[in-house]
């Protein structure tokens, strides 16, 4: 596939039934080989690191997209992608959590497809567009199956950023729970206690270390 609008993309029957795992959904949208591996980070992405990341793609475009999907408003007690640390959470999903490579590839490919489409329509990259232009572009993208899946995937991660324990990088001080009047349970995991940091399971001898579910840090 080369764009959200590739005619070869077919939505499987199970998507219509909404009984499909997100992983399967993403696999169906992928065609080409994986992009280069992203650098990895410690569980907590430091503020300064994030500021640097946001200056360049893919994070620049992803930040702009997330902010468009869940924008700031003037209303008090409102919520936004920035307020729930959606990008920080997504960075963690892409570089710290043991997220499947095909899912990460799909998110990254979407960045390329989005900017290609923005260029074809406006001769600018996505972040340079006005709010109205972004809205029109994303609405067009959402009319393609692959585009709709890409945007919905980002929105699913917005929900995770908004409603998962703060140890995962989003939902600072539980702002998402407060906004939705949701009472969280306790105890919550702290740094070092995330799902991928639980004690390891037994492994067969012939399993290569590279496929182990272990955290990688720089």
């Amino acid at each position, binding site marked *: 596939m080369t764009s959200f609008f590739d005619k070869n993309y077919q939505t499987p029957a199970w998507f219509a039934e909404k009984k499909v795992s997100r992983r399967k959904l993403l696999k169906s949208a992928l065609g080409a080989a994986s992009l280069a591996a992203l650098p990895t980070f410690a569980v907590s992405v430091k503020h300064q690191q994030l500021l640097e990341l946001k200056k360049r793609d893919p994070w620049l475009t992803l930040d702009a997209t997330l902010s468009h999907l869940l924008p700031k408003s003037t209303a008090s007690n409102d919520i936004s992608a920035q307020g729930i640390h959606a990008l920080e959470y997504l960075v963690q999903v892409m570089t710290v959590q043991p997220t499947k490579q095909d899912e990460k590839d799909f998110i990254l490919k979407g960045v390329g497809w989005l900017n290609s489409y923005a260029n074809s329509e406006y001769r600018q990259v996505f972040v340079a567009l006005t709010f109205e232009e972004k809205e029109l572009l994303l609405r067009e993208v959402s009319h393609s199956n692959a585009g709709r899946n890409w945007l919905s995937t980002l929105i*699913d991660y917005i*929900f995770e950023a908004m409603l998962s324990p703060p140890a995962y990088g989003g939902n600072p001080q539980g702002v998402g729970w407060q906004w939705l009047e949701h009472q969280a349970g306790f105890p919550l995991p702290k740094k070092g206690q995330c799902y991928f940091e639980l004690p390891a399971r037994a492994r067969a001898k012939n399993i290569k270390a590279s496929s182990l579910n272990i955290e990688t840090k720089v």
Partner: protein
Amino acid sequence: MKNIKSPDYDICIVGSGAGASPVAYTLAKAGAKVLVLEKGPWLTEKNFFKDELAISIHDAYNPKLEDEQHVIEEEVQDSEGNKFWQGEKTSDSGWSWWNGSVVGGSSNFMSGYFHRLKPIDFRLKTEFGGINGANIADWPISYNELEPFYAIAEQKIGISGRVVEHPHQEPRSTDFPYPPIAELPMSSWIDKAATSIGYHTVPVARAILSKPAMGRRSCEYSGYCSSYGCSTGAKGSGRAALLNHAVATGNCTIKPNAKVYKIATDDKGEISGIHYYDAAGNKRSVTAKTYVVACQAVETSRLLLASKGKQFPNGLANNNGQVGKNLLFSGGGTGSGDFIYDQLTEKQVNELKVVGPFINRALQDWYQIDDDTFAGTNRNGQAKGGTIDFLFHQNPIARASGTQWGSFDLGTAEDNSAGEEQGSDKLLWGEELKQSIKHEFTSYKTLRFEVFNDWLPTDDCFVTLDDEVTDQWGDPVAKVRIGYHNHDLEVGTYLAEKAEKLLVALGAKNISSSVSGYPSTNLMAGGCRFGDDPKTSVLNKNCQAHEVDNLYVTDGSFMPTGGSVPYTFTIYANAFRVAEHIKQQWFGITEIIK
């Protein structure tokens, strides 16, 4: 004189959940040297958090399906109407059949609704006769034989509850050892509504400590219970309630990350040892005087089927071909109704918003159906019925998921900004998305119910070994055929309609229910049914293999029929019963040696 090496342990138990832990506890307390081999890691209260990502989204307490999986055979139909069974790997479907692969097993993640079976469950065939297409069999023991062990389990596990007079109350020798855990306002709403329509509610006993005891803290009402691991020790998992005490005797060794792949037998058909992979994948073996298998129904059958030997070419204790047969799940389904905040008083809304305590209400008025209008396979409206439990869900990410699709109802057509797209799959974002998710979380609360009725044993529900798919160690995985009997749906639908009437009486809106033949993978039993006839059962009434004297199966595999309640309590009680038998056997062996 020939030097015969004595076994490494008195008792070797494969698995560590509700079927295994009572045996480890009882025998270690009695002084026997016990080894528990558990495939998963040994976690403690410090490893359990109210973390939806860990429990639901990433299923972190279970193996990855690429490493360990199942093959599930469903009946499908081609375009010409021909039916056939088609298998699918769970790594392809994403449908995990694991329920907690850690020390303590799935009991760490149970809701802990501890209903006892009732006397009628032990003699289903005698009471209701046979049903075409179902392999119904009476149990070889009665309720009265198991009752003392329900009482022991209530004490040792720490069950909270209260006894009330009820049309279907089973006989009890004792009261509950712990008072009920705190209840939500919804509990009294249900009581009142039930009374108004002639129903009788039952307070649900829970495997949750209502006060500190036995070295465990009581429930702290964190609001997330159900499938979440307990960080206080209040939930009566086999690990928290029994294994910790077993280890404290100094007689019980638990080896986590030890994956048993074969029970070996010699030319005479006697068990020569248990073979397992350690955490690093090295092959190990161990011997014992007595062997106990309790890996949960599917994996227990898988292990026996994989344990072939000269005397057991079809798998251990399987010369009659019964291992893996008559697998059981729970029949029934789920339903729900919504309480719309703007249709309620402020007091009612505030009561609905209380989080922490439990509903703990069930209906068992139709545990035995006696209703001429019941249209199922029956004798003049007589049939075995079931149980209805009520609950709230908490998982916020799951609740948010889907609100990005434009089908939300903001109340009236006039003010519905998504009205044009309502019912379509318009993807919402921006202010529309905010409205949608805010509406989802703050405008109503859903009361859910679960129906439990018998999953009749049939020839289309069983475990075999798959010919092609293997686990990460290269061993064949279990293939599970999941056929069901239509009678299960008829009973489930009957009960769901009764539950819906209660939701109507409660004033709930958007009431619906769903009863299907899909198995409840967290509620499994059968596969090694016990019985008096060695030709038709795998185990005798003591859950001892007919063909192998020192082999016992103590998880839910023994059940020839499952009853109409969740299985865990009965698995605990039966394992305590069998443990007592094994203890007496062990005392006998010890005396002979002396």
